[in-house]
Structure formats: C-alpha cells, structure tokens
C-alpha cells in the first residue's frame, strides 16, 4: 500500500511539473530542484548537481532524464517508469488535443496571420537560443572551430539539400575532439 502511495506521489509531482513548465528543459530544472530538494528533501543539492551533469551528457529530453533519475532513486525501476510517465502525460494530452484542431484553426483568417508571424518568430527564437548556449562553450580554439564547422556544414547541407544528417556532423565533431585529446595525451607522455 505504501509503495502505491509513493508511486502516486511521484506521478502527480512530475505531472504537475510537466503541466506548468513552458519552454523546455532548462526552465524545468529550477522547478524540479525546488520540488525535490527544497520541499520533499528526497535529494541533496549536490546530488541534484550530479544529476544535471548526467542529464547534459546523455541524450534525450533533459526533463525525462531528471524524472527517470529522481524516480529511480525514490522507488527503483517502477519509480523511474511512473515518474517518466507523469512527465509526458500532460504533453501527450495537450498536444494530441491541439493536433486534432490545428488544421481547422489555420483556416481562420486571424489565426493564419498570427502563424505567419510565428513562422518568423520561431527562426529568431532558435538563433537566440543557440547564441545564448555559446556562453557555455569553453573559450579555446578547438571548440570554436567545431562550432563554426557545425554552423557552416549545416547551412551548406540545407542550401544544397545534401543528404547528410545532423547526427553525422555531431559525431564527426565528437571524433575530431577525441582524436585531438588522444594526440595531446600522446605528446604529453
């Protein structure tokens, strides 16, 4: 009975976080920290920092990484599954509902005009988000070169409609960085 109660608590907590955070992962982290560390005291601040490092170094939505981690700490595999389920449920319900109406919505003049504007806004918001992320890049030659490589390669791929995926570009950059690390290590020895 107690186990069911803990699982229910996890589900509701992450469903609430999923429902009230708009604008992606990083907005969510502060809220998760507040709920899990300050209010529930399930984890310490240090554990939360470790979780962030893991979340940033592993693929997938950061919010899902956090939910899985916290859920596992609290109640093993089931805790992880239920927390993750809680996190995605609001999105599923809201977006599924919107998807049923979006095409009809777009036939209304004023909505179509609004989306003309949003189309411009989305591009600008993405550029801005990318530029903000630049602050996290180490100020050294290699990261800068790889940044410019990603930028130019992706623009070229897009304009020439080449069949190269962004995954291939990312992995190339990762391997270059690994090779440089190995060569440097070899020279140091």
């Amino acid at each position, binding site marked *: 009975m107690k186990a069911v109660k803990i699982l229910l608590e996890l589900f509701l907590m992450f469903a609430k976080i999923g429902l009230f955070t708009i604008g992606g992962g990083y907005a969510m982290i502060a809220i998760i920290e507040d709920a899990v560390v300050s209010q529930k005291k399930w984890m310490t601040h240090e554990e939360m920092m470790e979780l962030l490092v893991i979340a940033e170094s592993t693929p997938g*939505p950061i919010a*899902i990484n956090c939910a899985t981690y916290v859920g596992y700490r609290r109640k093993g595999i089931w805790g992880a599954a239920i927390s993750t389920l809680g996190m*995605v449920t609001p999105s599923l319900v809201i977006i599924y509902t919107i998807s049923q109406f979006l095409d009809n919505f777009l036939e209304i003049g004023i909505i179509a005009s609004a989306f003309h504007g949003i189309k411009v806004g989305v591009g600008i*918001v993405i550029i801005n*988000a990318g530029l903000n992320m630049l602050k996290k890049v180490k100020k050294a030659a290699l990261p800068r070169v790889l940044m410019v490589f*990603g930028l130019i390669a992706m623009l070229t791929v897009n304009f020439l409609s080449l069949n190269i995926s962004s995954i291939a570009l990312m992995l190339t950059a990762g391997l270059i960085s690994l090779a440089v690390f190995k060569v440097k290590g070899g020279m140091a020895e």
Partner: protein
Amino acid sequence: MIFLDLFLGFLRVGCFTFGGGYAAIPLIRDVVLDYGWLTEDQLTYMIGVSESTPGPIMVNLATYVGSSQGGILGSLLATLAVVLPSYCIILLILILLKNIIRNPNVKAMLDGMQPCIIGIIVATGVQLSLKACFPHGSMDVRALVIAAILVGIIVFCKKTKRKISPIKLIGISALLGILFYGI
C-alpha cells in the same frame, strides 16, 4: 509501415539529441522531411506551438508528428520512442556505469559534440528565418519587418539586462503577424 517508421524515426531523435530541446529541432527536421511527414511550414508552426505549450519540446513535437501520421496510436508510439533511449541510458548509468560520465574519452567526445550542436542549432534558426522572410525565393517585406522588430526587442533586452522568454517572443510574433497580415 507508418507505425514502425514513426517509432524508428523518433528513436533516432531520442538517441542523438544531446543538450535539450533546441538540439532536437534539427534532428526532428531531418526525420520529418526525410519521410515527408510534414511540410516545412507545418513543422515550423508546430515548433511555435511546442514552445508555447507546457512540456519538453521534443515530447510535444513527437506527439504532434505521431498524431498527424498515425492518430492516437501514432502519437503514443512516437512519444515512447523519443523517451525510451533517455530512460534506458539513465537507468544504465545509475545501475551499472556510475563513472562513465567521468571517463576522459567520453568527456572529450561530448566536449567536441557540444559546440558543433550549437553551430547546428544556429544554422537551423538561420535557415528557418530565411525561409520565412524569402518564401519560394521572393522577398516577403512584412516578414522582414517582423524579423527586424523581434531582433530589435532581443537586442534591447540584452542591453538592458532584461530577460525575455521564448514564449513571450512567440506571443509577440503572433501579434505582429495579426498586425501585418490582417484579420
């Protein structure tokens, strides 16, 4: 088969998106345009909606694309696929590989991927902006004016050290759209 395609397509997105929602956008664009599931316009609209509704952007986009291609089952499968890699990897790290994150080789690889991803994100933003301002090769003056106003707002906020959230920017761009393109 569409359900298998949706699952595999979004599994790819879930496996390779490092560093949050914006990093997912180029990958989802690859998958969606490769399979021809949505037009570029539809996808851009939905990115706007995903940024203005609650929940992780990646999950929102997966749900939408899934539902548009395969109804409720499609949206469930696409969402499951985008979440599954992250779920499994975190469990693996917690149970077996506590120290893999600190492995210097893994770290060197991730350190190289991060700046490249940022470059890819900026390139995707540039691409979408150009498509919005120069649709089908012709110039859309109203779109250019909206873009200029938005850039002005961002620069003003940076100079005065104010924060402006993506959702506010999307809201403003919707209002500007109504203003310039009419009711």
